[in-house]
């Protein structure tokens, strides 16, 4: 139905959609986890906070799992190279995520202050560590990652975990953390009232300002960083063969797409504008609009990074030709087609029943609700 090169572009967009979906949906749960110990000052307040996401975190986490699965299916080389190369970073994300299912489900089953506060900090780790690491990972992708392929396409990563924690990547980590905190704050403000809501809005405002500052800073920094450019003629319809092309590294390469296509500037504008607007709307107590605005900011920020790197997905700093791009790190034509239709079929259904679940559980979560549902609520 679609030719190979069209499907390759579609899958770049779909992976983007899944990442944005993950950051909006699982992101707000993670943001709530990040804010939990600070906006909830006693057990009852914390239970209110946790129960705003109680019925939904599990479904939302599947955005993450499906995103991983989709990258596995559509970009197997990216999945293989990134996950094994970022070995320790991935394990830290994984172990941080361990705290969430058990934290949510087990925390309130025992009436013991130490037990509960331990899980609260577990939920904080599970909410704050993954976005930080994902931001750092993006920061590294923008600089290129040291890996190479041999004749058999076995990838070898030659960097270390500590190299990932360079200044630019850490700044990208700040953007990501602040963005997710804002996203969680906007959601939490919508589902709570009174003192918890007030604290949340204050925190969300701070997160929005921090995000904008770090994002703009990273944007300026990026212009001085060596980007990557394909120097050979590439046949977009060809079978994926990453080592067949020639790639060069040069300053300003990441800005080329914006020069060619000025409309792309809307993406960073959306990132900045969405965050500031969200903070404003939250202060006006237009919380649902505030959540929509922060979700748009998420789209803007992730879109900005994607658009400046296109067609690169994972550039290699040590074997330039091995850089993974949307043209040569993908699955076969058949698999991309099948996965496209599977996504088209199921994504609307997922959105439909997720919306239904949110509408069933709509309304403010209050202290009275927790008291009435002491045995059933988290």
């Amino acid at each position: 139905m679609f030719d190979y090169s069209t499907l390759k572009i579609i899958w770049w967009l779909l992976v983007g959609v899944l990442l944005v979906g993950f950051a909006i949906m699982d992101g707000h749960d993670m943001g709530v986890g990040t804010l939990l110990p600070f906006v909830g000052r006693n057990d009852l307040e914390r239970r209110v906070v946790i129960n705003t996401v109680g019925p939904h975190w599990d479904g939302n986490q599947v955005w993450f799992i499906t995103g991983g699965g989709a990258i596995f299916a559509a970009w197997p080389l990216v999945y293989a190279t990134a996950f094994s190369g970022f070995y320790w970073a991935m394990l830290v994300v994984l172990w941080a995520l361990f705290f969430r299912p058990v934290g949510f489900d087990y925390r309130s089953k025992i009436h013991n202050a130490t037990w509960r506060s331990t899980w609260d900090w577990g939920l904080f780790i599970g909410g704050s560590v993954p976005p930080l690491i994902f931001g750092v990972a993006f920061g590294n992708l923008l600089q290129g990652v040291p890996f190479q392929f041999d004749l058999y396409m076995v990838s070898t990563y030659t960097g270390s975990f500590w190299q990932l924690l360079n200044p630019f990547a850490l700044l990208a980590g700040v953007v990501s953390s602040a963005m997710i905190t804002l996203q969680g704050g906007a959601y939490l403000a919508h589902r709570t009232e009174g003192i918890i809501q007030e604290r949340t809005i204050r925190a969300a405002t701070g997160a929005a300002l921090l995000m904008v500052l770090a994002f703009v800073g990273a944007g300026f920094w990026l212009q001085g960083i060596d980007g990557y450019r394909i120097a050979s003629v590439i046949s977009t319809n060809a079978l994926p063969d990453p080592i067949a092309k020639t790639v060069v590294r040069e300053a300003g390469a990441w800005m080329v797409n914006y020069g060619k296509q000025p409309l792309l500037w809307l993406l960073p504008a959306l990132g900045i504008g969405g965050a500031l607007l969200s903070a404003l709307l939250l202060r006006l107590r237009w919380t649902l609009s505030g959540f929509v605005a922060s979700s748009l900011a998420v789209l803007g920020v992730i879109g900005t990074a994607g658009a400046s790197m296109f067609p690169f997905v994972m550039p290699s700093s040590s074997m330039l030709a091995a850089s993974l791009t949307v043209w040569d790190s993908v699955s076969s034509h058949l698999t991309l087609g099948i996965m496209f239709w599977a996504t088209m079929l199921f994504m609307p259904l997922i959105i439909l029943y997720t919306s239904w679940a949110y509408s069933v559980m709509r309304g403010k979560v209050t202290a009275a609700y927790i008291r009435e549902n002491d045995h059933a609520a988290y």
Partner: protein
Amino acid sequence: MISEQLVDLSRLQFAATALYHFLFVPLTIGMVWMLVIMESVYLMTGNVIWKDMTRFWGKLFGINFALGVTTGITLEFQFGTNWAYYSHYVGDIFGAPLAIEGLMAFFLESTMIGLFFFGWDRLSKPQHLLVTLLMAVGTNLSALWILIANGWMQNPVGAEFSYQTMRMEMTDFWAVLFNPDAQAKFVHTVSAGYATGAMFVLSISSWYLLKKRDVEFAKRSFRVAAAFGLASVLSVIVLGDESGYTVGEAQQTKLAAMEAMWETKPAPAGLTLVASINEVEQKNNWEIEIPWVMGVIGTRSLSKEIPGIHEIKAKNRERIVRGIIAVNALEALRTNRQDAVAKQVFEEHKTDLGFGLLLKKYVVDVNTATPEIIERAVNDTVPRVTPMFWAFRLMVSLGFSMLLLFGLAFWSTLKSACMGKPWLLKVALWMLPAPWLACELGWFVAEYGRQPWTIYGVLPTHLSVSTLSVNSLYGSLAGFIGFYTVLLVVEMFLMVKFARMGPGSLGTGRYVNEPQFHA
């Protein structure tokens, strides 16, 4: 060359985390249907005890589910982190069912589980039952897609190797989907899950009955578990995945190893009950055999032969020799994609490429493989017989003892006599670990039995790993052991606590052991 230690540690980590994950999955798969049954009865009769049953068993289900989710993410991550070459080599086929599992099944299951717990007061009775039902459907579809992926590892149909991309590529999605191996596995595995769920409810209900507390609640739970368990365990045994063992060479090799069949026997082969296995001389010192049975089970016929280990190895020796030619042609093609001679040689020999790659465990250049090395590679193609033979027998014995227990339990509930037979209740209580042990053994037989391959005949295990340092593996393995030990302790603590507390933990005021605390 890839260090053997790295391969062993990667395998150990995968085995440990997969076996651990599989402690929670079967219970989820089985219990979810029992929740559907209980809630259906509640909807039909309006008797609130059935609602309490759904909620109480649901609470225990939730404690188990949390760890199932936690440990499931590990497995998805691990293909990328520790089996990068595998992910590249077969991601085109293997990734698709995993992604579809997320889209079609896991989203549904995970969204509905939230409403299952939090929606009791916000949904009408039929709506809530629908939620429970969709949660069950999601859970089972999830198992289906995972087993389609796993079935493809055992019997890699619908795919072909491409030298340009240096990987397997899908050629026929429907063949992958309707892989007979995957279908047999699905039925066998979910039935085993149902039996696990039934045993869990049966054992804990028996304990309440022995203590003579919450009797009405426990009796009904016992009855549901006995009926559901009997049907499930019959399905595990009758539709056992031995019917799948005739499909493909991987399964034939597995069958020969788990039956300790060194020689091809005249059809229909006998079933070996016990044997004294001599791995060194590759024979059984003695064996006790029931004539005919194996042939009938394994081939569903009286005339088809089941190949023995020696015959399988002889075939594999030839394939390895042809595989050397395939590897050489491939390496020439990778250096020069236009090499027409190499291309022709490769196309003629590529079905044996995987067998040639087996030699890479011992030599970098397959041309340097001496006859001794080829012999070692040939011996590698069949897994060790002793663990396969006994693991399988233990699994089957556990299956039959559960059949006996569920049969007796069902019979006694028909006569409404389960209160009168404390010995049966005690046996039911002590049999609690049986289905878990059987499930883990089943996983072992399936996965250890496929060695030395990750994808049978296509990709050897030792080539599948990520090129990590051995120290990284020691570090991550230590981390997993630490986290998983703590998680297991916490989970068991809560599970035992709430099982002991019983339905009183719901705080409805209708049961003993009502909690005294307040928020």
